[in-house]
C-alpha cells in the first residue's frame, strides 16, 4: 500500500516552467490518492500563473510496458509540454523519466512509508518512500536510491569514470542527474540553493 501527499504550491512554483502537462497516476487500487488536495493544488498553481496546459491520467505508471503504451497514446500532449508534473509514487516517476530522457519531470507528490507490501510491480527503480520527494530538483532521478550513500547535496569524491565506488558496474547516481540535466539543457541553480537534510520522521510516518 502506498500513501502519497501532494506538495505545496510554494514548493512547486519555482520548478515549473513553460507549458505543464499534469499526470496523476490512479492505477494502484490500494493507493490513497488525495483527489481533493490535488484539485485544490491545481487551482492554486493556475491562479499563481503556472501554465497547466493539459492533463492526462495514467495507471500503474510503475509498469514500464503500460507506461510505454500510454506515452504512445498521449504523444501529442507530451510533445507540447515543457514540464511534466507527475503525481505518483517514486517508482512511477522514475519509470516515466527513464522512458523519456529528454523531458523535464517534476514530482508533484511525496511518497510516505507504510509498513507492509510496499508497491505493486518489481522494477529496477526504487522508491524509499522518504516522504519528501526531491525528484523535481534532481531531474527525475532519485538521489536517495540512485546514490549508494543516499547523498542529497551532490556527488561524493568516489565516482570513477562515472561509476560508483561501491560497484564498478553501477552508474554514479549524481553523475546520472548531471547527465540528464545537461541533456535537458537544464540549470543546477535550484539544486545549488540551500542545504538538503533528510527528515527521517517523514519516512516512518
Amino acid at each position, binding site marked *: 500500500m502506498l500513501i502519497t501527499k501532494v506538495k505545496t504550491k510554494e514548493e512547486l512554483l519555482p520548478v515549473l516552467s513553460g507549458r505543464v502537462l499534469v499526470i496523476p497516476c490512479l492505477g494502484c487500487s490500494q493507493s490513497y490518492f488525495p483527489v481533493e488536495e490535488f484539485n485544490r493544488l491545481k487551482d492554486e498553481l493556475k491562479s499563481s500563473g503556472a501554465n497547466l496546459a493539459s492533463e492526462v491520467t495514467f495507471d500503474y505508471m510503475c509498469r514500464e510496458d503500460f507506461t510505454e503504451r500510454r506515452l504512445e497514446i498521449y504523444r501529442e500532449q507530451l510533445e507540447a509540454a515543457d514540464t511534466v508534473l507527475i503525481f505518483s509514487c517514486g517508482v512511477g516517476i522514475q519509470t516515466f523519466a527513464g522512458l523519456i530522457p529528454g523531458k523535464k519531470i517534476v514530482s508533484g507528490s511525496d511518497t510516505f512509508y507504510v509498513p507492509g507490501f510496499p508497491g505493486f510491480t518489481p522494477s529496477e527503480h526504487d522508491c524509499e518512500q522518504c516522504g519528501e520527494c526531491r525528484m523535481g530538483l534532481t531531474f527525475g532521478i532519485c538521489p536517495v536510491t540512485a546514490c*549508494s*550513500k*543516499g*547523498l*542529497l*547535496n*551532490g*556527488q*561524493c*569524491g*568516489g*565516482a*570513477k*569514470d562515472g561509476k560508483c*565506488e*561501491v560497484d564498478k558496474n553501477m552508474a554514479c547516481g*549524481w*553523475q546520472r542527474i*548531471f547527465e540528464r540535466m545537461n541533456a535537458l539543457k537544464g540549470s*543546477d541553480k535550484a*539544486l*545549488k540553493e540551500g*542545504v*538538503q*537534510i*533528510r527528515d*527521517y520522521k517523514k519516512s516512518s510516518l
Partner: protein
Amino acid sequence: MKLTDLTRLGKFVVTSEVGPPKGINLDKMLHEAEYIRGRVAAINVTDNQSSVMRMGGLAACKVLKDKGFEPVFQITCRDRNRLALQADLLSAAMFGIENLLLLTGDHIVLGDHKDAKPVFDLDSVSLAHCVKRLEEGFDLAGNKLDGEAPKFCKGAVVSPCAEPLDPQLFKMEKKIKAGVEFFQTQAVYEPEKFEKFMKRVKEFGVPVYVGIVVLKTVGMAKFMNENVAGIHVPDSLIEELKKDKEKTKSGQTGVEISARLIKDMKNMCQGVHMMPLGWDDKVPKILEMAGV
C-alpha cells in the same frame, strides 16, 4: 592556529597527514609526526581511513596538540549520525582543536567491516552547515548551546582532476555556501589540469591547498589509475618510476616527482597538502627541493 589565518597573512600553507593506529599504541604515528615537526603548519589526522577501523581521530588530535603540533581533525559522515557528529565537534572545540576537514567518507564496503551499517545521515555539505550552526550557538535541531559557542576553521576536499569536473565544482560551491573556508585537494599529478581547475575556482575566493601523494612504486601508480577516483598518474611519470628501479625503490624518484609537482603548482594555489602514506621521513626533503 587556523589555516586560513596563515593564508590571510600571505603564508604558503604546508600540511601533512598521519593515520591513527589499529590499536592503542601511538608510538609509530608520533614518530612519523616528529619527522615533519616545524616543517608543516598542521597535520591532518584521518578518520577510519578507507573505512578501516582504527583509533579515533579526536584522541589522536588531542595527543598531537599536547605535543605541540597543530592538528586538523578529519571527520566523516560514514560512522556517525548528526548527534554523534555534533558531540565530537563540541569535544574537539573543548580540546582547543580549531581546524576541521569535513568529509562524506568512503563507503563502508571499501573497508574492513563490510557488514556494518553505513550511516551518511549528513554529508560533507550538511556537515559544514551543521558546524556553522554550532558556531552560531545552536545545534542542528535549533536548540541553543550553553555558554560560549565553538569556533572552527572549516575545510573540505575537492578533486581537481575529476572527469567530468562540473559535478565537483557544483559540490565545491555548495560547500562554500555552507561555510567551508579552505580546500585540500585529492592528489594531483597533472599540473595543466590543476591550472585549468584553479582558473575556474578563482572566483570563489577560497584558499586551495593542492594534494600530493608520494609515488612509491609503479604498481601503486597503476592501482590508483585503476581504482582511485579523481586520480590520474600520467604515463610519463610511470615511465620515470620504471626507469631506475633502485632509485624508485629507495624513494628518490617519488621524492623528485613530488618536489617537481609542487614547484610547478605552488604559484597557482595557496598551499600544499602532503599525503605521504607512511613516508613522512621523505616530506622534509620534498619540501626543501620544492622550495616551500
